[in-house]
């Protein structure tokens, strides 16, 4: 209470003082508050609370879109009660672009530079002035009107860091404001400072060797300037050295001791010993929330109650009035766009995606996500990936189609292809997992261990080999670990909503296309042919009854159907232990569904998708056959 009120007065004071003390020629100071800019671009280092400030400024009415021609998320909204557009850019560390994310921000900043009435609001972590100033100095070199916002001022004060805001304003020649965006403190001050924005003062004594090329690059007209990276490092060094001087003059150092709760928690989460139990608990909660609640409870509710109970019968009833069989089958038949495609995408995948993105936003905002990558780095390095791959892989346990979409977060093409392959091959989606777990329950522990060993072995071997065969390099594993924080519910919800919208746009059409292809195959009697062709393989190689061929194929095409087929077969006592394990291994290694193939094609191209399918299906059958031979040799037999 006391702290909050103290902060509040502190902020008002800073805001007023800032306006009066704003340096420069004073031309803009007179009509302060009179003219708001047309557009504000929020910019800053990662994890400085940009999203929180964005939400505080816009009041949570954001739309998310991919920046044209990229996969980078850009949030847009309007400054509360005004027409001013607010754009939230991805976090970046330098304005000379290195990654795709930074390229997007670079383009946004360039668009601001030339325009009247557009300003950049640089959000900085008040605790880490030095790094923020690197960006501020670059904005100065670019001549971009800027307001500097020192966010998370409360955390800085708690660490004993005091920033001389007025001194900083004088040194940089721009308005500097302090905020605690998550609690809405100091937001009015930021809005009030917008008309005062001006280019940061720039008398950076860059060595001549760097100054000219840097300015040329910053001012360059090329869409994607070719920058020699070796030069960039020198440039950053000289900027940092200068920023360091300013930071030293206007901010005190942090108290060295005093391990605060968030700091301790952050270290505990990656502790060589205690990190593991914490990881286990997090993964368990994740599984309970996404796997049990989302893929179980919610899917049941949506699929059985809503779709099978109401929507599908309604649609069937509606279409029964249509006199022609063709449109009837097309929309509500066995492979109907509504009864299969839409209920697949909305009833089965949407709940998984919804719960996963909620969990993802919580992990992201709490700061645990990069720590998860740290803990799992070793495992993924075995497979030629690194810790950053943990996210798509975990999502794959929910839905491989969605997970394939999120492999975009991986830095190199090689890693994206590798992760896509391993997802399709070895990570069972919730549908496959459901059948597998039900069958596992009927098996002795030793047989279950055979299944696990076979799948893990194939994953590691294929990952290891593919990492050597595929051209290109694995990206370096460098991840910044933000402090652990309590996620703010409104931000979690708005992120989740924006991403679910994205799913509906990107993945849902693929479920419809997949259904359409099935419908066509069924009409042309192709399905029967494929099932017939598969029978000798299923019987001869896998030693399973011929009916299993239909189960495998339909399993690839329709999840609900295959689950019951194979499960019924095993429950009826038709399969012995070896047959069960063989069936499980083969199902796990299969590509989960046809939508996944379409997603691979969409993300990686048709050639890659075809190559992967041509690799995975024979491998799945071959591995099933191998397991059969080995298990017979090891003396497994009889009914479970």
């Amino acid at each position: 209470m006391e702290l909050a009120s103290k902060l509040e007065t502190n902020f008002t004071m800073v805001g007023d003082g800032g306006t009066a003390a704003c340096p420069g020629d004073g031309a803009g100071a007179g009509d302060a508050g009179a003219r708001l800019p047309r557009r504000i671009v929020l910019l800053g280092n990662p994890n400085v609370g940009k999203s929180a400030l964005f939400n505080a400024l816009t009041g949570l009415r954001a739309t998310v879109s991919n920046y044209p021609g990229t996969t980078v998320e850009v949030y847009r909204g309007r400054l509360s009660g005004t027409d001013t557009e607010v754009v939230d850019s991805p976090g970046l560390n330098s304005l000379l672009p290195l990654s795709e994310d930074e390229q997007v921000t670079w383009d946004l900043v360039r668009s601001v530079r030339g325009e009247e009435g557009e300003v950049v609001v640089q959000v900085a972590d008040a605790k880490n002035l030095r790094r923020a100033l690197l960006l501020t100095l670059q904005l100065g070199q670019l001549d971009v009107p800027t307001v500097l916002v020192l966010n998370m001022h409360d955390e800085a004060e708690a660490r004993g860091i005091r920033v001389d805001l007025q001194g900083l304003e004088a040194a940089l020649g721009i308005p500097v404001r302090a905020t605690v965006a998550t609690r809405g403190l100091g937001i009015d001050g930021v809005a009030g400072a917008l008309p005062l924005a001006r280019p940061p003062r720039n008398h950076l004594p860059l060595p001549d060797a760097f100054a000219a090329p840097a300015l040329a690059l910053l001012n360059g007209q090329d869409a994607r300037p070719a920058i020699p990276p070796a030069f960039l490092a020198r440039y950053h060094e000289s900027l940092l050295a200068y920023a360091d001087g300013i930071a030293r003059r206007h901010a005190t150092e942090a108290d060295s001791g005093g391990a605060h709760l968030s700091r301790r928690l952050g270290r505990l989460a990656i502790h060589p010993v205690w990190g593991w139990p914490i990881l286990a608990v997090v993964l368990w909660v994740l599984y309970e929330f996404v796997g049990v609640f989302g893929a179980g409870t919610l899917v049941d509710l949506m699929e059985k109650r809503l779709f099978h109970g109401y929507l599908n019968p309604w649609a069937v009833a509606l279409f029964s009035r249509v006199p022609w069989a063709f449109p009837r089958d097309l929309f509500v038949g066995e492979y109907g766009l509504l009864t299969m495609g839409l209920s697949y995408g909305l009833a089965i995948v949407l709940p998984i995606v919804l719960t996963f993105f909620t969990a993802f936003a919580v992990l992201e905002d709490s700061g645990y996500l990069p720590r998860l990558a740290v803990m799992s780095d070793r495992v993924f390095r075995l497979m030629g990936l690194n810790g950053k791959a943990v996210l798509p892989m975990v999502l794959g346990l929910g839905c491989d189609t969605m997970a394939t979409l999120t492999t975009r977060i991986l830095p190199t093409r090689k890693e994206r292809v590798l992760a896509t392959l391993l997802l399709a091959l070895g990570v069972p989606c919730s549908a496959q997992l459901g059948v597998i777990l039900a069958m596992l329950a009927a098996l002795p522990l030793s047989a279950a261990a055979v299944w696990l060993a076979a799948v893990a072995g194939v994953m590691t071997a294929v990952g290891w080999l593919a990492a050597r065969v595929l051209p290109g390099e694995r990206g370096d594993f460098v991840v910044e670990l933000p402090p652990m924080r309590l996620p703010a519910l409104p931000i979690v919800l708005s992120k989740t909503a924006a991403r679910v919208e994205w799913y509906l746009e990107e993945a849902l059409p693929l479920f419809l296309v997949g259904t359409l292809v099935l419908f066509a195959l069924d009409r042309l009697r192709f399905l029967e042919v494929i099932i017939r062709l598969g029978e000798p393989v299923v019987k001869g190689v896998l030693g399973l009854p011929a009916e299993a061929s239909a189960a495998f194929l339909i399993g690839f095409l329709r999840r609900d159907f295959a689950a019951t087929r194979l499960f019924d077969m095993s429950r009826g006592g038709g399969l012995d232990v070896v047959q069960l394990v063989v069936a499980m291994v083969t199902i796990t290694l299969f590509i989960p569904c046809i939508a996944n193939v379409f997603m691979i094609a969409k993300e990686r191209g048709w050639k890659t998708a075809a190559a992967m399918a041509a690799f995975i299906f024979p491998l799945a059958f071959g591995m099933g056959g191998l397991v059969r031979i080995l298990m017979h040799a090891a003396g497994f037999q009889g009914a479970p």
Partner: protein
Amino acid sequence: MTTPPLAPAPGPVTCSLCGFEYVPGGAACREIHCPIALGGCATRHCPRCGHTVPDEERSAAARLVRRLFGPRAPRAATTLADLPSGSFGVVAAILGDPGLQARLTAQGLAPGVAVHVVQTRPTWVIEVGETTIALERRVAEAVRLKPS
């Protein structure tokens, strides 16, 4: 007829306790009444003071134990990967891939900056000012340190 192959005749060693120079095995062993005085075991007895030490030239186990528990040989830390957890160092230069150099410098890891190594397992975690960065061995080896 066939005798087990013997280890090559050992040269004289110096007792680390009393400084006496002796040839281990054989007479030296019998002299102190070792019950298994075979001349081939992996311990050495000083015939003057009786100080007994494991013969690391012969015993892989003794070498392993020393490596695991023995005092670390003071090695000059030349890169970040050489620093034990909890220690500090000052960056001299960042080598290797220029793209990596540019990224690290943008994150504040630049020559002249003090680095605190928080831990080295499961990966390296370092603190640079208020920034915490996790990196793999390959990257840690690219960060060259100033001699302390």
